[in-house]
């Protein structure tokens, strides 16, 4: 386990998988006038998953049980 002291806000320690999890799995959707199609948003989420793992593995894991984004 890492000894991260409180109040360290550096971005360098952030594991990409944790970041992706939060950026697309958390936060608030505040829909404005510029909206991506539903397919577009799904593609972005799939793409962000691809950021951390090769395409064929992501497709496989999605087929096995997709986490709701």
């Amino acid at each position, binding site marked *: *386990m*890492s*000894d*991260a*002291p*409180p*109040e*360290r*806000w550096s*971005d360098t*320690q*952030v*594991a*990409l*998988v*944790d*970041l*992706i*999890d*939060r*950026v*697309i*799995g*958390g*936060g*608030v*959707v*505040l*829909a*404005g*006038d*510029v*909206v*991506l*199609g539903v397919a*577009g*948003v799904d*593609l*972005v989420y*799939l*793409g*962000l*998953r*691809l*950021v*951390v*793992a090769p*395409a064929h*593995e*992501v497709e*496989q*894991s999605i087929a096995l049980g997709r*986490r*709701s984004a």
Partner: protein
Amino acid sequence: MDETIVHAYGIISADDAPNQFPPGIADTTVSIFGVDRLAAVVSLLPVEGFGAADWERNATNVVWLERVARQHHAVLQHVAATTAVVPLRLPSLYGNLKSLADTLRSAAEPLERDLRRIEGKVEWSVKVYRSAEAQSPAVSAPSSSGRDYLLARSRDLSARSSAQEQLRARVREIHETLGQICAEYLRNQPQDAVLSGRREQMLLNGAYLVGKADQARFLELVQEIADDSSTKGLSVEVSGPWPAYNFTGEAETAREALT
């Protein structure tokens, strides 16, 4: 700059606005756009390159997406260090500031509720894995007959499933213990092994909303749990502080579903 589109990173209280920001997406200047009692942390992106069509076109462009996600997060991380901020989920685009203002006004009430909810608090993440040595299967002595073999195998299986049940109970206990010093806490789905790149089974993917003054105590408690002998077979990892991604807006429904 040519035609622009508004990207919003997060929402803060208008009287809480920091005055300095790191560069935003595409190295644009980040600023504050106040609407009544709320303010959005925004930057103006070139439509050419960051419009809805570009998002759709780049939807599987991992280099582009990673850069955008990191810049989005870096701005939120900076703001969250001093100010309660409701993080917005990517992509968060508005045609112009007027449209953003309209959106903010129509959602002012839930946003102010979210801000009160996370005021003075930050999010920490604690993950518990089943460590590699705990995963090796039990080995039985060689069996002399088929019947012996089946008996031994059934003993192995039940020993393994009761060991698994004990680990799960211990993990629930860890989560509840940490929760005692949190304003709120919740369990997310374990991260997919493919995405995390970890071979060990993730047993806990917990998020904890901790008062800023309680952070040192929270981390001490995590350390105690990690050192505790009853945590044998488990490995504990902590990260944070994070902006309160898990304790704003829609996360609320996810939490209710799990409790």
